[in-house]
């Protein structure tokens, strides 16, 4: 616990100093932080609770659209629309989970792809609200305490706060009753029921919290993009990237998804600038290597070795 809180402190300290040290690398850092927050939110359901979603772009898009539409059409400040997005995302997750959590195996995962697709079609067709296929544009934003929300520095700090809040949430949950209910359901639903745990209710809670957190990051993303297009924001690619970030970093670990974001988005950026065309190929190879040789993900594998070593030491002593 203290170990993780120190980690969080380091993240915040480095983060607070970052814009002054690397003022020219803010955009990539914002991406890393948003993905860290999204992947960690995803992992609450996918890693800790074992329910793999391939539709988390739905919640990113929901947040981004609500912030953009709220601002451009109704003059609502982002903090209100982000709170609304969290509530709407939770309701959507509840309804979707209620429909699909009784399905076992890969069906839940497959069904989540449909959610993003449905939302994308809604966004394209409800032109009066969403601007249709063209998308929606944020032209003005409020200036709380004189802060310009269009500045990359302000956006960086929002993304940092988002990532930190999500990671803090996971740190607390991992130690609490709810965190153990999540893991019990992931490991064995019958055994969980024998411990008095309601598997469906547990999955619903995890899905709702995961969706709500993701949508808040989506709202920040909307501000960062300032221009939201349905086929970009509700893309399967984004959903897959969020899931992969967590899986490569280490499912069901506190820091895995954040490390995954650093590696995937960071490496992705370096590859894109150095290798240009070969970028996707190298990205693909990286994923393959992790899946084949580090199936628990980077942090998952490190943690396991650490436990083994501790245990071996105790067994000798």
């Amino acid at each position, binding site marked *: 616990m203290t170990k993780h809180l120190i980690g969080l402190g380091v993240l915040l300290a480095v983060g607070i100093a970052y814009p002054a040290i690397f003022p020219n690398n803010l955009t990539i850092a914002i991406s890393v932080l948003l993905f860290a927050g999204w992947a960690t939110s995803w992992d609450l359901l996918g890693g800790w609770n074992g329910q793999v979603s391939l539709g988390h772009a739905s919640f990113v898009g929901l947040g981004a659209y609500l912030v953009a539409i709220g601002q451009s059409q109704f003059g609502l400040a982002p903090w209100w629309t982000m709170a609304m997005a969290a509530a709407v995302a939770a309701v959507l997750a509840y309804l979707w989970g209620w429909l699909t959590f009784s399905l076992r195996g890969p069906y839940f995962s497959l069904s989540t792809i449909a959610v993003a697709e449905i939302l994308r079609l809604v966004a394209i067709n409800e032109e009066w609200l969403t601007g249709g296929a063209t998308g929606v544009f944020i032209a003005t934003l409020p200036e709380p305490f004189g802060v310009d929300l269009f500045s990359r520095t302000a956006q960086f700090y929002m993304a940092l706060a988002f990532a930190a809040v999500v990671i803090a949430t996971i740190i607390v949950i991992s130690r609490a*009753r709810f965190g*153990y209910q999540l*893991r019990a359901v992931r490991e*064995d639903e019958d*055994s969980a029921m024998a411990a008095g745990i309601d598997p469906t209710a547990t999955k619903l809670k995890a899905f709702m919290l995961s969706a709500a957190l993701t949508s808040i990051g989506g709202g920040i993303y909307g501000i960062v993009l300032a221009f939201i297009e349905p086929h970009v924001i509700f893309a399967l690619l984004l959903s897959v990237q969020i899931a992969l970030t967590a899986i490569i970093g280490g499912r069901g670990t506190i820091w895995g998804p954040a490390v995954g974001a650093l590696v995937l988005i960071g490496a992705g950026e370096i590859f894109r600038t150095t290798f240009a065309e070969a970028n996707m190929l190298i990205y693909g190879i990286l994923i393959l290597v992790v899946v084949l040789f580090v199936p628990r993900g980077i942090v998952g594998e490190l943690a396991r070795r650490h436990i083994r070593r501790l245990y071996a030491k105790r067994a000798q002593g």
Partner: protein
Amino acid sequence: MPNVLRADGITVKFGGVTAVNNVSLSLGSGEILGLIGPNGAGKTTLFNAVTGFAPMHSGRITLLDKDITALPAFKRTRLGFGRTFQTERPFEELTVLENVLIAAFLTVGRRSEAERLAMSVLEQVGLADRARQPALDLNLARRRRLELAKALAVKPKVIFLDEIMAGLNPPALREMIAFVRSLSGQGLAVLMVEHIMEAIIELSDHVIVLASGEKIAEGTPHQVTRNERVIEAYLGTD
């Protein structure tokens, strides 16, 4: 003796096969009910039906005079059922302590108190020194005891033990028999499935014999072991 658990006319069908046919049982606190029968007799299926893990075709179950027939398994646990699985089902990725902690969280919300309860149960079953070990690494005898610890940590009124003695060596078997006796001494109602007759005869107040899903005999251990239908059922299949 007042009944803690009553099950009336339990019938379970899998497709066209009747795995349990119209079996009834009742159990008071501190009482040990032994359930025996040849392989495939329907013992585990009866356990699963009573605890809510197998859908029943017909029957009625009451716990402390409350009808729980329609309740899902996890609600029956909350009302006072604890169970083991014949093939142990630990949460493999977690430590021994965390496995029991999950069960302890049912009655205790605070982490520190739940951990204390889990540790005291681990001490009872003799696994305290393994608390930090991954559950995956336990050998058979210890996996059994972990299964027992998980069932006890929900603080049940009725505990269902499905062949927890199978495969134990003689000293471990003696320990387990003494342990089950101590549970009934604490007022727990115990329902146990067991192939080891030594344990059944020593522990059971009452024995029910199943064969091909039917109750073919019941009574004291001595009555049923002399019953001709029982002898025939065992000799006929083994």
